[in-house]
């Protein structure tokens, strides 16, 4: 058994830590499964992009962050928002478009925001979050009282965008504390990486910007956690960026309108053998850290939380139409408050 494998022995992380990660991943999974149902019932509309299959990424990275750190995510960000501490109620109400939602119903699934936890969305322009993350980190560098890291999640599709290359260059050139987390789920909507990139080794691109990088099994929550911990320590210590590529896979369609003509069912089934929740709970059981009854209890609690959130969203209110024009600009009274 190699040293790397030893480090991934759940016993080295402790039972409580491992159970918390199971809980994290199940909260995302149950929340999103319910969202898919609610979409079918037309309670949720617009685009809905599910993270199912990729939960180990958010569950591995986010517990490493400090409260003051910044998070920038994509339109597939329900899991990141949940694990960053946004209440499931506020997220579900946002999915419904209710004014109790975390973005008052103005954003929807793709635009979850939370100022209190430095959660900067929720960006539906592929690659759009990267320059934003660079700027947040630049603000932290300029204000020398701050010791903060900005974590920027994006899919592998974003590496084809100019925004990716410009942002990687700026972050490396200016030595900004950004952790770039590339969630490589192999498909940019329906276009496989090999059909869109001349160089499919993404870490080579990071190396091209003189940026340290690492590749990680994104289906293994402890592997993600350990790699992210190490990466974040390095970003903090050296005050310079790092690129982390996580190999993962989305089990569901790109969005609710996707017939999945671009990939084989067999491929999806193969990846499901690596389901981050099933494989991790199996490993925990094998290590004697988890009983069936405990998984069931965690799962039940997650499902209960989802039902509470659904009830909260159902009971939520529609913002009066006479409020339509609010929050286009900042009202004078709110101006001048600290960000």
């Amino acid at each position, binding site marked *: 058994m190699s040293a790397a494998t030893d480090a991934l022995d759940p016993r080295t992380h402790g039972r409580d830590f491992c159970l918390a990660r199971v809980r994290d991943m199940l909260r995302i999974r149950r929340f999103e499964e319910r969202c898919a149902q609610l979409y079918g019932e037309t309670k949720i509309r617009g685009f809905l992009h599910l993270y199912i299959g990729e939960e180990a990424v958010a569950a591995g990275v986010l517990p490493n962050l400090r409260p003051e750190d910044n998070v920038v995510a994509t339109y597939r960000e329900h899991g990141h928002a949940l694990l960053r501490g946004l209440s499931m109620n506020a997220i579900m109400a946002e999915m419904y478009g209710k004014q109790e939602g975390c973005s008052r119903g103005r954003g929807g699934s793709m635009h979850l*925001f*939370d100022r209190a936890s430095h959660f900067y969305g929720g*960006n539906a322009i592929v690659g759009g979050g*990267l320059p*934003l993350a660079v*700027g947040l*980190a630049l603000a932290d560098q300029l204000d020398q009282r701050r010791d903060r890291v900005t974590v920027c999640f994006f899919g592998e599709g974003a590496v084809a965008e100019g925004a990716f290359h410009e*942002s990687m260059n700026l972050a490396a*050139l200016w030595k900004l504390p950004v952790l770039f987390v590339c969630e490589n789920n192999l498909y940019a909507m329906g276009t496989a990486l090999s059909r869109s990139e001349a160089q499919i080794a993404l870490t080579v691109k990071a190396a091209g910007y003189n940026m340290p990088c690492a590749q990680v099994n994104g289906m293994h929550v402890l592997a993600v956690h350990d790699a992210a911990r190490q990466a974040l320590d390095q970003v903090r210590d050296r005050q310079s960026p790092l690129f982390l590529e996580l190999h993962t896979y989305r089990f569901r369609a790109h969005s609710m309108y996707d017939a999945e003509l671009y990939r084989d069912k067999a491929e999806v089934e193969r990846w499901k053998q690596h389901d981050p929740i099933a494989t991790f709970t199996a490993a925990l059981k094998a290590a004697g850290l988890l009983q069936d009854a405990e998984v069931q209890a965690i799962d039940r609690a997650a499902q209960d939380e989802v039902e509470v959130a659904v009830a909260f969203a159902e009971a939520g209110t529609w913002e009066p139409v006479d409020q339509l024009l609010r929050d286009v600009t900042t009202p004078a009274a*709110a101006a001048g408050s600290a960000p």
Partner: protein
Amino acid sequence: MTRTTYREALRTAHREALLADPRVFIMGEDVGRYGGSYAVTMGLLAEFGEARVRDTPLSELGFVGAGVGAALGGMRPIVEIMTVNFSLLALDPIVNTAATLRHMSGGQFSVPLVVRMATGAGRQLAAQHSHSLENWYAHVPGIRVLAPATVADARGMLAPALADPDPVVIFEHALLYNLEEDLPDDWQCDISHAAVRRAGTQLSLITYGGSVPKTMQAAEALASEGIDVEVIDLRVLRPLDMDTIAASLRKTHRAVIVDEGWKSGSLAAEVMARLMEHCFYDLDAPVARVCSEEVPIPYARHMEEAALPQVPKIVATVKAVLNV
């Protein structure tokens, strides 16, 4: 009262902003060592250092987007883009992010970002350095759009733009940088109102930016022929100050709009539409406009001149509307 240029007035305003607020910094292509492509930031690097007068790579999308992020992070960035043509490479962070974030986040995040850029033609720089696309930005809710046309506005607009909690885009017509005027002692200004640059009774000439000097010259020429026109400098292209425009129309009952943008979908078109909505019964004649010809701005001097609004054309259009 001090004699100064538009460029010097801008530079003084930038220096003052850097001195007044440690959150303010400037970034853009060649703003530092080169001194700014139009020399607005000349000398500021030596005084304030590389962190606050920051040269960027040729990455408009990247550094404007970083400006949005830095504004979110509590800074007060001034981002300079060389010309409006290059700003198209940064439309995404401005239109999709800076202008939308407050709304998309349900009012949680404001973006106190200032973006400045040169605009306009007149220096034989051809079709990729000469366009006037102010209307593209003025179309977008969530941003304020300014066009300083005088030395006083060049001096006075930056501070209130930085104090604005939301994104502000400032257009500096490239032909104005060398404009020399007396800077009045009371150069402080707001960024909400249009200005009456010349009072008159027979017709309202409505314009902004680089067309203001031409329009003032046209008004002088008309005055020498006994025709008394008012000149309104819009100053603020979004949100438009219809009160000042309507007050002028109630007095003059006739209007000509001068806009260096192309007619189709232009700011001139917007002002005309609003005149119909707000002032229809005050009008004694159809509103007319003088815009650039519908052609990419050509290189050859005589062709460039022919493409742009010029004093004789403004004079002729005014006379046609007055039927004199």
